[in-house]
């Protein structure tokens, strides 16, 4: 199962981004092969429609779960229909490495 995590930077020490649509990077982590991929978000500066465009990027990688701080109203129904699980983590101080460790245990 692949998991997408929103990140503020492109290394393991960077923090979890509290926004989904306009986060800096997406981390795609594979829980089986333990491989990961950092994707810069092209919608970071978008005026509107950043959420659905970001969902498209993440869904094209066959992700099953998304970890982020918040999800917008447009995204919720979209992710429900795509059967992607949303995980809301309201802890901005958590780093990407810590979250990946939580997923592995």
């Amino acid at each position, binding site marked *: 199962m692949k998991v997408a995590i929103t990140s503020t930077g492109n290394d393991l020490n960077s923090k979890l981004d509290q926004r989904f649509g306009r986060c800096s990077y997406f981390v795609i982590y594979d829980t089986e092969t333990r491989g990961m991929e950092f994707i810069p978000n092209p919608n970071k500066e978008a005026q509107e429609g950043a959420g659905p465009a970001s969902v498209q990027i993440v869904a094209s990688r066959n992700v099953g779960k998304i970890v982020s701080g918040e999800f917008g109203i447009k995204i*919720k*129904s979209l992710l429900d229909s795509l059967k992607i*699980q949303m995980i809301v*983590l309201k*802890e901005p101080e958590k780093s990407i490495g810590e979250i990946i460790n*939580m997923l592995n245990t």
Partner: protein
Amino acid sequence: MFIIFVLNYCSYFMSPRPLRLRKISNPPIISGFKPYGKKPEKETNEVIFLMYEEYESLRLCDYEMLNHHQASVIMDVSRPTLTRIYAKARQKIAEAFVMGKQIIIEGGKIYFDSEWFSCKKCGCFFNNPEKQYNITECPLCRSNNFTNCEEVTNGADESVFRCSDMCICPECGHEQPHNFGKPCSSEICPGCGHQMIRKGTPKSKKK
């Protein structure tokens, strides 16, 4: 004469208020119905589109046996709106039965509401996108110490229903038990003399 002219003029140019989004708790497991045993001479593929919101109102009113007010609170619309949706649903289904038309369930101004859970160990919130499987562990830290957020709010709502409905004053927030059979709008708030409305309807949540 002049007033009628102005009213007509306004109704021609002013757009109506946009529809309120209807909340769908349980989407249908099928996407429609087909009639059978129809004489094939009339090859008409006439279909009736039953909106999701109409399906949901039927499910709440006829399957779950709730009254219109309880159903309207669940769908997050006003009671008259729910009754209109429900009446339309019955009319469409009756038409499909009588005319032997196909029913397709799709469309409507709606949003889905999935169940939310909260984990006590890592403090995260998560939903369950696949309704047919029950969640057994937190997807993040794999502990089984989590609670269903919906149960808490549902429990509060049920207690409101059990001790009968309440009338609330939209101005000062005064509440009193609802008199069965008497419209809330005919009640007068003893504090400020304003008309009362039913508690739990979208209007009463604004204040």
